[in-house]
């Protein structure tokens, strides 16, 4: 195969593909020709024949397109395995896409034709080298997925649907590089084009993680600050180096003085030895001759001393040794014995050591000061770099504006706090899910207009510390399915989402997510020998065990994690972390730890996928090189209570409110949530006759409110409901520990495996398909109740 970059020529299609394409083009020509020559007579026979012909062409197209899409997928897999960019592979993509475009256009599948055109354009760009390979690969994958989706819809429903193309274009809008590829003369997205020109370039979060990171635009003033702090940091290097040098010099000086001190040590030793020897010799001079000689010497010595009181030199050996007489200094200068010399040297050296030590102290203090200045500057620089990545939320909110604008409803999005700033990558990762969420909520325009003439939608953003709170509110009932869309993106960001009924009677979604990636402020706690981190945002306050009202639920962190407890501390009062309460929840939750060690600001990173555990949101490495796990306490509590009883071990139970005996004897309580009145009435009647206590909810939001008022034993949930559908409710349940023990049975007309699988993954305990006979319903309820009792 020719490895040079080939330019694409339609004639390079394989003969078979060329034949197919020509056939589709001729089919188009036949129709046009008939219309032009007025041979197209509208009659029932002709229209039936035409329809059959169209269906035949469609069937042929679907078969051909399926093969071609498979070829595209295969080519993409090959590209992903390549270690370098191979232009030949992109030509293959271009060829196949060209064929699909021609054929799709001929059978009036314009959505698929447009998607294929995008693939051709991206192939051209990459062979020309005008686009990063990683972006192109991402675009190819998205486009091929869109083709597959459209083809599936075409095969199933007979029409391709507009959603695949729409979603693809939304995804492409992430990367502004593609904006111009989307524009065709007939496209009515000029407004988007203008808006795209005004917005700074954004990148998708996935692209940012790739080594080939595209460019991003940043605020020039912030770049100036970064440069300024960098320059100041560079200026501090010289003083730090100088202080280091001063310290090194002082240390060297100290070392040399210490060396001199060490040199004096042998002299000291010899002097002591001499003195000892002299003393011994004195002791040994006991013989008469020695005494006589000594006496004579002393007499002479005293005589010499009287002549010169200042001249006295102690010679080596003994002063009584006649052979060693005192040296007479005729000039009367001071005479120093060796011992005196040594003492003087020692004194001087000790003084030098003292001075050198002082210099070392001073130099060390100066170095410490310079280092502190340096670290302060580093912190400033780091903050300014983090700020570079912050952009106003209006970049995200503009997407929500568009989502509201495309709705047929007469709504204008009301916005507050759009100047709140957050990390670009975080906003990018939320832009598509949130716009999809708004579209989903407003999808049933007819029902909305029936309920209210003046629907309102608003967005309110606030930032506090490293946390952003975003409220998306609707003044009316909306279509369910919103939580399903935002669940995964919020989990990836370590964010939380809740919802409640707002003052307008509609539903508000409250999202909390970090302002930026980077350090997290955490509480450092200990259980037994383990040190762990708890994000500040999860803890309302720390109490020394029930300072305030006792919590409704109390756990020990060791039990939540399954770690061994410190048995020696059983009777000791432990600190309790009172968790931040969910807005709609009425329960207070407390978690006991062995010790609160303090707080820390650390960089928390996710664990490897195989090490991820429920309730562990990441890990940080502290200054000692130890790994500290960061906990998600609400998630830990939820998982724990799903497997355990709510109340912990004895010793603590006595201090918690217990259920009264009469409350425990109540019949089982079942909540029925369905938007169909007749369905609700039928279920209520069946269950009431079976002596269950039953309550109803008309939509998902009302169901959640009633669950929180009094958690039912069992909840029968329909899937399709306003505000929150059944899947949304299953997702929302995870944010409320008091609902952890509630059993959920889906009761729905959706019978596909996909729906059942999804319900199972979200934690549903049973799945009933409408119409459901009474016996099956009652048997299921009884089974679930038996499991709860067990």
């Amino acid at each position, binding site marked *: 195969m020719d490895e040079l970059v080939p330019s694409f020529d339609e004639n390079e299609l394989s003969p078979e593909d060329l034949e197919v394409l020509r056939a589709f083009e001729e089919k188009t020509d036949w129709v046009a020709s008939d219309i032009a020559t007025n041979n197209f007579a509208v009659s029932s026979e002709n229209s039936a024949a035409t329809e059959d012909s169209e269906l035949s062409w469609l069937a042929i197209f679907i078969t051909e397109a399926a093969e071609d899409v498979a070829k595209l997928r295969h080519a993409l897999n090959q590209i992903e395995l390549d270690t370098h960019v191979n232009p030949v592979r992109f030509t293959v993509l271009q060829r196949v896409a060209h064929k699909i475009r021609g054929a799709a256009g001929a059978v009036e599948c314009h959505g698929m034709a447009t998607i294929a055109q995008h693939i051709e354009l991206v192939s051209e760009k990459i062979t020309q080298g005008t686009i990063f390979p990683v972006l192109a690969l991402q675009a190819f994958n998205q486009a091929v997925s869109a083709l597959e989706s459209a083809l599936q819809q075409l095969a199933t429903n007979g029409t391709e649907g507009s959603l695949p193309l729409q979603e693809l274009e939304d995804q492409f809008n992430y990367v502004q590089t593609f904006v111009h590829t989307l524009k065709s003369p007939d496209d009515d997205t000029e407004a988007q084009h203008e808006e795209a020109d005004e917005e700074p370039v954004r990148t998708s979060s996935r692209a940012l993680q790739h080594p080939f990171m595209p460019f991003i635009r940043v605020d020039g003033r912030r770049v100036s600050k970064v440069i300024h702090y960098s320059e100041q940091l560079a200026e501090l290097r010289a003083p730090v180096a100088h202080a280091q040098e001063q310290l090194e010099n002082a240390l060297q000086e100290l070392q040399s003085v210490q060396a001199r001190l060490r040199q004096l040590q042998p002299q000291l030793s010899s002097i002591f030895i001499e003195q000892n020897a002299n003393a011994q010799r004195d002791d040994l001079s006991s013989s008469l001759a020695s005494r006589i000689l000594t006496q004579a010497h002393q007499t002479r010595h005293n005589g010499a001393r009287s002549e010169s009181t200042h001249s006295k030199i102690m010679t080596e050996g003994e002063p009584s040794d006649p052979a060693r007489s005192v040296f007479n200094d005729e000039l009367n200068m001071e005479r120093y014995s060796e011992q005196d010399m040594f003492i003087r040297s020692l004194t001087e050296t000790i003084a030098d050591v003292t001075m050198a030590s002082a210099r070392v102290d001073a130099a060390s203090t100066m170095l410490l000061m310079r280092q502190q200045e340096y670290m302060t500057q580093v912190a400033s620089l780091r903050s300014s770099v983090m700020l570079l990545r912050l952009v106003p939320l209006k970049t995200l909110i503009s997407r929500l504006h568009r989502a509201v604008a495309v709705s047929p409803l007469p709504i204008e999005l009301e916005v507050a706090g759009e100047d709140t700033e957050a990390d670009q990558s975080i906003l990018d990762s939320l832009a598509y899910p949130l716009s999809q969420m708004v579209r989903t909520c407003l999808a049933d325009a007819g029902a909305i207009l029936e309920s209210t003439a003046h629907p309102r939608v608003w967005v309110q953003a606030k930032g506090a510390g490293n946390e952003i709170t975003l409220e998306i509110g609707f003044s009316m009932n909306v279509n369910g399915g919103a939580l399903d869309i935002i669940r995964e993106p919020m989990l990836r960001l370590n964010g939380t989402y809740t919802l409640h009924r707002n003052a307008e009677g509609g539903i508000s979604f409250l999202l909390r997510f970090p302002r930026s990636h980077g350090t997290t402020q955490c509480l450092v706690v200990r259980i037994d020998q383990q040190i762990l981190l708890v994000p500040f945002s999860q803890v309302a306050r720390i109490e020394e065990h029930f300072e305030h009202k006792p919590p409704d639920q109390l756990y020990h962190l060791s039990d939540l994690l399954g770690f061994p407890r410190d048995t020696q501390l059983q009777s000791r009062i432990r600190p309790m972390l009172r968790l931040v309460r969910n807005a709609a929840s009425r329960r207070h939750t407390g978690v006991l730890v062995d010790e609160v060690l303090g707080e820390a600001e650390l960089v928390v990173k996710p664990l490897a996928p195989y090490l991820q555990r429920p309730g562990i949101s990441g890990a940080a490495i502290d200054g000692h*090189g130890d*790994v500290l796990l960061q906990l998600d306490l609400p998630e830990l509590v939820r998982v724990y209570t799903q497997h355990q009883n709510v109340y912990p071990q004895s010793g603590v139970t006595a201090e918690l409110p217990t259920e009264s005996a009469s409350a425990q004897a109540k019949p089982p309580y079942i909540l029925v949530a369905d938007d169909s009145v007749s369905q609700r009435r039928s279920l209520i009647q069946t269950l009431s006759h079976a002596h269950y206590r039953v309550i109803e909810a008309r939509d998902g939001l009302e169901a959640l409110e009633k669950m929180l008022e009094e958690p039912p034993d069992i909840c029968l949930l329909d899937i399709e409901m306003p505000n929150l559908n059944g899947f949304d409710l299953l997702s929302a349940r995870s944010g409320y520990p008091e609902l952890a023990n509630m059993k959920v049975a889906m009761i729905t007309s959706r019978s596909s495996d996909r729906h059942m699988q999804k319900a199972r993954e979200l934690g549903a305990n049973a799945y009933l398909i409408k119409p459901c006979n009474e016996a099956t319903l009652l048997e299921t309820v009884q089974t679930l109740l038996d499991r709860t009792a067990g």
Partner: protein
Amino acid sequence: MSDSPRPQDTFLYQEHASLLEQMSDAEFWTYAAERAQTVPAEQIAHDNFVVCDLHGCSCLIDLSVLRAVVPAPPRVSLLPLAPVWMLGITAWSGISLAIVDLATYLLGSQQKSGYASGMLLVAQHNEILLGLSVPVIGMSTSIDTSRLLEPEKINLGFVPPCHEAIKGIFMGDVVIGMDDSKSLVLNVPVILTDMVQQLRMTASYG
């Protein structure tokens, strides 16, 4: 043929160089011609292994899968829902590294070993990076992997945790002082993959 001694081995060591230097020109060229005409013996595969003593069981681990051999850390952080052979997590080169007790994993002990001791072998296979805690390691050694016996042919005294965890059995002394008439050559990539799979399963099912 000359009477000069001739190097017997293929590899040129110092003594061989000396022998060659002692040869006359004629002897040298005769020798060279003979070597050129000699059909080379099949290249014997010699891989380098590090010897580990897992509570009396001698094991060999291919050096090519090891990133580092370091002293075991004094402390580890426990991970919830972990298998019994997983000791915890420690930091290595700025990343969180899971430490597993190789002896407990391989030999099937149900008791947790407690903190890591001995040495830590940081092993990598594709994206998987795990720390294998072993009580004792010996020197590295080179063995002929073509001479390995199949594990099925010998009674190991325990059931391996997964199929193909043991690549083969090497019969012979690898370390003086160890009773190591046989040594297990471990298939570390397979072991790492199995460990990761079990770690994932315990996260889901406890």
